[in-house]
């Protein structure tokens, strides 16, 4: 239970590759922070610097107010769960969990209590005498978590703990991590490349790219107000549609003109544009697939598109369409909104009309790719 | 040479493709060499820069340092002691004391004698008591060279330690300035089993390698530039001296006192390369073949066949080699068998010089080497064959590949890819395969044409056995010419390293590491 503070943290490898630039972050006590980003963005490196597994090239890492740069991992009082679990293959589950306590010379009866307690919580009591290789992926994952749990450490680090599990198990373990977090009530730093995990688990999300922090914020913040194009595209599935178009100011209102249609920007976004006194001009317009809706051909803002692929996901349809100038868009429509006739009409080559919801559009500067509303 | 793009290359006929690849292989060699030279140049440049930086740092540390640091420039470890790092300080101080003591007592003498390798040789001196001339020993060239080299090593170590000592002061000052505490001796000891554990682990092996491998090699390289031999042994008989490149000239000249060393060396080198080639590749392909036969589906008793072959690995080579060599002598078992079966009327002289070229003996050592080597290769090949993903064969079968095609398009490329570096090391290993040659033939049959050369050269002699013969027996009038052995040793090194360098750069597993992963 401790705060973690990273100030100007930097990682430069021997071959002068900079993995992390100037990383600044204040993690509060008992906060659950998720580092997310594509592979090679420096998220694991940052975590490993907190753990003491990588040397810190510049800046300071503080745990609970104490600078830990020169401390060995064992002296930092942290626990960590690895991507491949890193269970000691030659030890039983019990010995695996007890390993750190034995190194601390904790009395055996205390160890027994702690280990069985952790095993109870994780539901692995019956496997205590097995070797890791006799366990399934999910069970191994639990052992790895158990090993970290018994340490009563200040910070709990997790490095892509779910990426080796299959989809179903991953969902289940994700829910269990949420429960575990409530039980442990400690500071968590969690690394993942999966935006769904980040959104569901984190109090705050740190989105990284090429060693830079792109945005730090709560899941709602990063989803509704992405600071830049990268964050906008990274968060949310399917990916946000981005098109180059013009933002015009006419009187009191802002318009965008994709594919010849004229769409008004209203609601909160329109107000913000007004408040910021954005001049208009060429912008990158971002529209999430769920914010594109079917339109009446007669509507002013209707855009004619041709259906290319129709992915039936169950509760919703993912329509891959292209406009008259060949731009591809993804449209996400809840199945429940469609009549059976409409659904049958959704075959390859079908002509449809769509329009964008004005109040949830995102605007980015075409050069800097920054959100115009920031 | 015209360089084809990928698509152009694909349009070439099969023969042209092959020609193109061969051509680009050879045209690639100068470039590889040039890259190597450039790399060395870069290394030198970086080393120069590093030295300059160090010098700058030493000066600036002195200028900016406090008085404790300044005293440490003379009295090593003083800064550490003054700042409370007693253990480090004492170690530095002790090292300095030992160094100065050594230099005064012995090091200085050896260092000063190194350029001449001794001035006073063994001679006779008049002994007034006995009233006769008695032999007296003078300087000892061998020891001068040996301890001279050691002293230079020691000086380098001292300079390095001194530099570390200076750096320590700088770091300590910085730490104290930032308000942190210095590490105590206890912390130092603890870090030796933790974050500095590698230093603990490497200390002993490195010292061993330094003294028993590096030092002898440096010494022997230097010997190549002297006239050290059993006649000029530097103490008992004569001093030895620096002779510059004379020994290299000897080895490369056509006529040295009636001996054609250049031709001798050329012949032995040619045979060494031939031998290494045949020994490596016969073993390699036959080993794969045997492994494939044993591993073929439907062959029973796999374990038995394997065990029979592996058993022969366990028997120390000197026993099997000596015994087999005797089996093939004039009155050996094999000749007995041939006579018994009536295949020959007369015993065959396998190790003899029947046609004045030693051809039979050369073929015999290659054959017997197959007998020695196949079990190893069988083991290695079995391990790799089992690792070839089965789906490669399955997809090849579906594509309609026959057994032979499967072998030539999947098994062999895979094997070659995986074992490329092994092939290289086994080639160079065979070039230096002393045991097989020496225990089988002792280098014989003797090459009469080259009898004048040191070490009684034979037809199956490799450079390495020649080197051994020169050091152990040498020639009658010149004794064991150690300097010649050193020259040959250096040349062996050059040949091995050039081959390694060229081949290593061209190996597919080095170039395209991921191909078969």
């Amino acid at each position, binding site marked *: 239970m401790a705060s973690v503070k990273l100030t100007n943290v930097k990682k430069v490898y021997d071959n002068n590759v900079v993995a992390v630039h100037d990383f600044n972050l204040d993690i509060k006590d008992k906060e659950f922070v998720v580092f997310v980003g594509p592979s090679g963005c420096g998220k694991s490196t940052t975590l490993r610097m907190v753990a003491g*597994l990588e040397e810190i090239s510049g800046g300071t890492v503080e745990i609970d107010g104490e600078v830990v740069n020169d401390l*060995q991992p*064992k002296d930092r009082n942290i626990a*960590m769960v*690895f991507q491949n679990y*890193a269970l000691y293959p030659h030890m039983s589950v019990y010995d695996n969990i007890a*390993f*750190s306590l034995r*190194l601390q010379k904790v009395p055996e009866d205390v160890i027994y209590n702690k280990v069985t307690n952790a095993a109870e919580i994780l539901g692995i009591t019956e496997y205590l005498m097995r070797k890791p290789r006799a366990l399934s992926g999910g069970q191994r994952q639990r052992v790895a978590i158990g*090993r970290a749990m018994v340490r009563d450490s200040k910070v709990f680090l997790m490095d892509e703990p779910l990426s080796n599990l299959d989809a179903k198990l991953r969902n289940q373990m994700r829910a269990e991590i949420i429960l575990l977090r409530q039980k442990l009530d400690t500071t968590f730093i969690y690394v993942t490349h999966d935006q769904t995990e980040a959104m569901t688990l984190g109090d705050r999300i740190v989105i990284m790219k090429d060693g830079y922090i792109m945005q730090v914020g709560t899941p709602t913040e990063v989803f509704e107000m992405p600071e830049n194009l990268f964050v906008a595209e990274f968060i949310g599935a399917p990916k946000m549609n981005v098109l180059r178009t013009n933002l015009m100011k006419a009187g009191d209102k802002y318009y965008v003109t994709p594919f010849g249609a004229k769409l008004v920007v209203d609601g909160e976004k329109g107000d913000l544009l007004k408040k910021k006194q954005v001049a208009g001009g060429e912008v990158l317009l971002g529209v999430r697939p769920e914010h594109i809706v079917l339109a009446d051909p007669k509507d002013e803002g209707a855009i004619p598109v041709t259906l290319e692929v129709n992915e039936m996901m169950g509760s919703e349809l993912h329509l891959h369409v292209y406009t008259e100038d060949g731009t591809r868009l993804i449209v996400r429509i809840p199945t429940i909104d469609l009549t059976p006739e409409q659904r049958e009409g959704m075959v390859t080559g079908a002509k449809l009309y769509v329009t964008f919801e004005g109040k949830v559009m995102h605007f980015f500067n075409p050069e800097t790719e920054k959100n115009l509303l920031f | 040479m015209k360089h084809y793009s990928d698509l152009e290359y694909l349009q070439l006929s099969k023969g042209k493709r092959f020609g193109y690849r061969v051509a680009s292989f050879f045209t690639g060699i100068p470039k590889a060499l040039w890259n190597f030279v450039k790399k060395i140049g870069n290394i030198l440049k970086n080393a120069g820069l590093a030295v300059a930086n160090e010098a700058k740092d030493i000066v600036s540390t002195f200028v900016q340092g406090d008085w404790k640091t300044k005293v440490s420039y003379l009295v090593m470890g003083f800064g550490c002691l003054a700042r409370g790092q007693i253990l480090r300080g004492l170690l530095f101080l002790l090292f300095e004391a030992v160094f100065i003591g050594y230099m005064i007592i012995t090091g200085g003498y050896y260092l000063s004698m190194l350029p001449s390798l001794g001035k006073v040789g063994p001679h006779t001196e008049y002994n007034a008591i006995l009233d006769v001339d008695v032999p007296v020993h003078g300087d000892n060239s*061998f020891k001068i060279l040996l301890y001279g080299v050691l002293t230079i090593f020691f000086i380098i170590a001292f300079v390095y330690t001194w530099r570390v000592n200076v750096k320590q002061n700088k770091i300590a000052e910085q730490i104290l300035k930032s308000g942190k505490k210095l590490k105590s001796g206890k912390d130092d000891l603890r870090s030796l*089993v*933790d*974050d500095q554990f*590698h230093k603990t682990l*490497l200390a*002993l*092996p490195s010292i*061993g390698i330094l003294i*028993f*491998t590096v*030092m002898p*090699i440096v010494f*022997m390289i230097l010997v190549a530039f002297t006239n050290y031999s059993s006649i000029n042994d530097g103490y008992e008989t004569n001093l030895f001296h620096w002779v510059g490149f004379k020994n290299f000239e000897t080895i490369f000249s056509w006529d040295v006192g009636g001996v054609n060393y250049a031709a001798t060396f050329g012949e032995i080198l040619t045979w060494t390369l031939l031998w290494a080639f045949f020994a490596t590749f016969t073993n390699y392909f036959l080993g794969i073949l045997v492994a494939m*036969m044993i591993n*073929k589906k*439907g*062959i029973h*008793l796999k374990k038995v066949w394997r*065990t*029979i072959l*592996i*058993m022969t690995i*366990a*028997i*120390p*080579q*000197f*026993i099997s080699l*000596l*015994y087999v060599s*005797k089996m093939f002598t004039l*009155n050996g*078992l094999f*000749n007995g068998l041939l006579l*018994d*079966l009536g295949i020959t009327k007369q015993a065959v002289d396998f190790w003899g010089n029947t046609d004045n070229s030693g051809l039979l003996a050369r073929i015999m050592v290659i054959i017997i080497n197959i007998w020695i080597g196949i079990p*190893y290769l069988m083991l*290695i090949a*079995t*391990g*790799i064959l089992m*690792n070839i993903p089965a789906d490669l064969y399955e997809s090849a079968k579906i594509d309609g590949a026959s057994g032979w095609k499967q072998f030539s398009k999947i098994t062999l490329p895979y094997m070659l890819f995986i074992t490329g570096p*092994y092939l290289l090391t086994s080639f160079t290993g065979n070039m*230096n395969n002393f045991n097989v040659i*020496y225990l089988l033939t002792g280098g014989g049959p003797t090459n009469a044409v080259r009898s004048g050369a040191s070490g009684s050269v034979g037809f199956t002699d490799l450079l390495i056995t020649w*080197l*051994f013969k020169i050091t152990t027996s040498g020639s009658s009038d010149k004794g064991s010419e*150690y300097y010649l052995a050193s020259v040959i*040793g250096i040349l062996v090194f050059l040949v091995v390293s050039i081959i390694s360098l060229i081949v290593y750069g061209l190996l597919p597993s080095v170039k395209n590491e991921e191909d078969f992963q």
Partner: protein
Amino acid sequence: MKKKLPLGAIISLILGIIFVLGGCFLLANRFMPEPLWSYNSAYLTDNFLFILFGALAAFIGILLLVYAFSSFKRNNVDNEKMKQHMGMKATSRISNTVIYVLLILISIVWLVPFICIVIQSFRIQPTGMTRYLFENPEAGLKEGLAIKFGFDNYVRLFTQTQFPKWYLNTFIIAIIVAVVQTIIVLCMSYTLSRFRFKLRKPMMQFMLILGMFPGMLSMIILYQVLKDLGLALDNAVPGLILVYVASSGMGYYVSKGFFDTIPKALDEAARIDGATRAQVLYKIILPLSKPIVIYTVLSAFMGPWGDFVFARYISNGRIGAYNVAVGLQSWLATTTMAMENYTMFCAGGVIVAIPIVILFMCLQRYYVEGVTGGAVKG
């Protein structure tokens, strides 16, 4: 479902019995004072072929029996599967037959020298090198095939020669080298596999270059130095130990390759769990490296038994300081010596080989793992 005996097992059982009995008969026939079965041929003398083939046949017979019994044991072959295999093409059956013939030939070629050396080690007269395994066939026939074999060579080996001393020398060297070299190699390879320090790459490259110098070159100087230290000539045993052990750090390659396959995450997990680097080594890495530790011990132990060059140079003619390789080679150094000591050399060879072969066969699995891994790692 009724289990049927596999055909192959029955055939090999029958063949095995025939081979063993036939081989024993041939051998027994040779050593009987009165031959049970007499033969007369101009060329096919008894000595070589009958004894050899008798021994070989018996050996192959035993192998066949072992196979037959082992297949009786796991006789749960699915008959349905067998039937499917019956449809195997005739070509594959032919090629399998060819392979069997080749494998048998290979086995013979590889085994003959070792069988011969064992047989010759028991020969009493003559003790020199001959074209025959036992004695001259002409003389043998005339003397009514008197038994000319016994343990004389072995007795002489242990009572009249320095052989026990050599054996002890080699054994001491091998034991100490096995222990110390293993420790050094493991230290070296663990460090190079797990630590990233500035000198790591230069060190490895430097050792690679050092390895390209012929090791024999350092012989001259090492001899002189050891002589000065009093560790050569009569005192060559400690000197040899020193030489073998000192440069053993260079042989880190195979075990480093093995350590590289142990995931680094294990080290990291242990370090976070509170282990020092030293604890990581002996609590995590070593327990997981049993095969490579055994391989290293085994190859370190076997090395000194075969070393010839250094042992000979450093002992430099002092018979008491020889190891077995130098000692036994010295018996065959000249033709006249070979005439006296040949059979004793064979006996010595057998004595040297037996313990190593037994040890080797027990630990074969680990050795194979090491050799294969080492080659693949390059």
